[in-house]
C-alpha cells in the first residue's frame, strides 16, 4: 500500500461526549486520500462534537483517531500541535480573529510557521484570497464582511499552509442558496486543483448530493453510524427507512 492509498483519517472504536454524557459510541470509519467525506445527521445528533474530536479539540472517552497514521489522541502536547498544523479547519462563523484584518488573519500562520519574507507573505495572502474570490479584501476587518465572505476568508486562512486535509463545520449554514452553491463549487475546485482531502459536517442535502464522494450518517438514538457510502447509492438502495427518508427529502423537494 503506497502513501496515497493509506487512509488520511482512521477512527477506531471511538466513544465521545460531554462531561459524563455519551453522544456517540464505538465509531469506526476511515477517510481516503483526496476524498470529500461528509458527516451527516439531524440537528443535535453530535456531528460538530465528532468534528471537534477529530481535530483534537476534545479528548474522546475511548478509542483512537489517526491523522496521516499518527494518533492525535495520544500525542503529547507539542506533537499534537504539529499534527493540528498539518490540517486546516473552517468554522461555522469563519472564526476569524476580530482584532486582525483579513490579510493579517492569513499571514499570521505564514509569519509563525514559515521563513517567508514580507513580500512572499503578501503574495501568498493575495493568492489565497483570489482562490476564494475575495481579491482586494485583505485590509477589511472581519466585522465588515458578510457571513458568506467570512466563511470564504476562513477557508483562505485554513489553506494558508497548503494542508492536504481540510475540515469544514457546517459550511453552508446561514448562507443563501446561491452563496451555498458557490461554496460547493469552490470545494470541488480545491479538490480538483490540489487533491485536498475534505471532511465536511453538514445536513444540507443539496450540498451533499453535489459534492460528496462518501457520507456517514449519524443516528442520535443509536448513538452511532447508521449508514455509510455514496449518498446516491444510499438513497436508491438503502434498506434503512430512516436513511431513505432523510435523503429523499431532497428528491421530494425536487418533485
Amino acid at each position, binding site marked *: 500500500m503506497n502513501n496515497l492509498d493509506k487512509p488520511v483519517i482512521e477512527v477506531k472504536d471511538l466513544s465521545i461526549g460531554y462531561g459524563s454524557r455519551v453522544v456517540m459510541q464505538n465509531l469506526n470509519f476511515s477517510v481516503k486520500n483526496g476524498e470529500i467525506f461528509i458527516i451527516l445527521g439531524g440537528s443535535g445528533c453530535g456531528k460538530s462534537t465528532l468534528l471537534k474530536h477529530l481535530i483534537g479539540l476534545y479528548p474522546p472517552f475511548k478509542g483512537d483517531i489517526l491523522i496521516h497514521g499518527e494518533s492525535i489522541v495520544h500525542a503529547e502536547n507539542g506533537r499534537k500541535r504539529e499534527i*493540528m498544523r498539518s490540517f486546516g479547519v473552517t468554522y461555522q462563523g469563519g472564526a476569524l480573529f476580530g*482584532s486582525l484584518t483579513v490579510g493579517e488573519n492569513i499571514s499570521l500562520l505564514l509569519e509563525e510557521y514559515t521563513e517567508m519574507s514580507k513580500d512572499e507573505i503578501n503574495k501568498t495572502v493575495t493568492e489565497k484570497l483570489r482562490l476564494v474570490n475575495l481579491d482586494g479584501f485583505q485590509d477589511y476587518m472581519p466585522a465588515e464582511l458578510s457571513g458568506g465572505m467570512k466563511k470564504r476568508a476562513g477557508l483562505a486562512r485554513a489553506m494558508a499552509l497548503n494542508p492536504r486535509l481540510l475540515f469544514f463545520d457546517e459550511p453552508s449554514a446561514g448562507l443563501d442558496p446561491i452563496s451555498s452553491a458557490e461554496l460547493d463549487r469552490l470545494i470541488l475546485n480545491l479538490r480538483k486543483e490540489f487533491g485536498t482531502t475534505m471532511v465536511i459536517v453538514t445536513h444540507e442535502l443539496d450540498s451533499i448530493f453535489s459534492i460528496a464522494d462518501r457520507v456517514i450518517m449519524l443516528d442520535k438514538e443509536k448513538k452511532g453510524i447508521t449508514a455509510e457510502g455514496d449518498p446516491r447509492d444510499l438513497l436508491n438502495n438503502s434498506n434503512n427507512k430512516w436513511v431513505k427518508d432523510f435523503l429523499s427529502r431532497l428528491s421530494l423537494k425536487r418533485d
Partner: protein
Amino acid sequence: MSRQRAPQLIEHVGEASIRIGRDCVNMLSFVGELSAGIMEAVKHPRKIRWKETLYYMDMCGSDALPIVMLICFLMGLILGFQAAVQMHKFGTDIFVADLVGLSIIKELGPLMVAMIATGRAGSAFAAEIGTMKVSEEIDAMETMGFVPCRFLIIPKVIAMLLAIPILTIFGDIAGIFGGFVVGSLKLEIPAIAYYNRTVVALTSANFLFGLIKSFVFAFLIAGVGCMRGFEARTDAQGVGRAATSAVVSAIFLVVVADALLTILFSMVGQ
C-alpha cells in the same frame, strides 16, 4: 422541618465545597500555564506579541490615566479633610502631610488604581476572551497549533505589569496633591512646609512597597480576567457572567494580597 433542612444544608455545603475545590484546581492549573508562558516569553522575548502588548498598555494605562488621577486626587483630598479635623484639635496640622503621603503611597494609591484597573481591564479581558470563545476563535487558534496563552494572556499580563505601576506613580502624585490642597487652603500650611514634611515622611522603601503591591495587583487582575474569560460558557449569558466573575474575584484577590503584603512588610519593619 429542621430535619428536612439538615440534609439540604449538607448538600449545599458539599456542592459549594466541590465548586470551590474545582475553582482552586482550575486556578492552580492556570497559574502553572501562565508561569510556563511567562518563562517562555522571558527566554524568547522576540516571540512576545509586542503590537498587542502596546495596544493593551494604551488601553489599560494611558486611557485610564484621567480617571486614576481624578479618583486618587479626591482620595487625597478626603483623607486630608478627615485628618485635618482631628489633627487641628491637637495642633498637629503639619502631620496631615505624613498621614496623607504615607496612606496614599503605601496603601490607597496602589489599591485605588487596582480597583479602577479591575473595573476597566479585568472585565474587558474576560469579556474579550469569552467572546472569542463563543465565536470559536480560541478553537481556531488551537487548531492552528498556537498556544492561546502566548497570544491572548501574555500580552495582557505584560501590559498590565508595565502600565499599572506607572499609573500608581501618577495616582500617588495626584493623591499627595489632594492632601496638599487641603493643607494649603484649609489648614493654611505654607506650601514649602507641606512639601518638606512630605519629603521627610516618605522614604524610598515606602515608595518601593507601594510599587511591589501594584505589580502583584496587576498580575492578579490580568490573570483572573483572562482565566474567567477562558472559563466563560458559550451561551448568551456566559460572557456577562465571566466579566462579573472576573471583577468580583479580582477585587477579592487584590484585597487578600494587600492584607498579606501589608503583614509581610510590617514584619520587615515597613
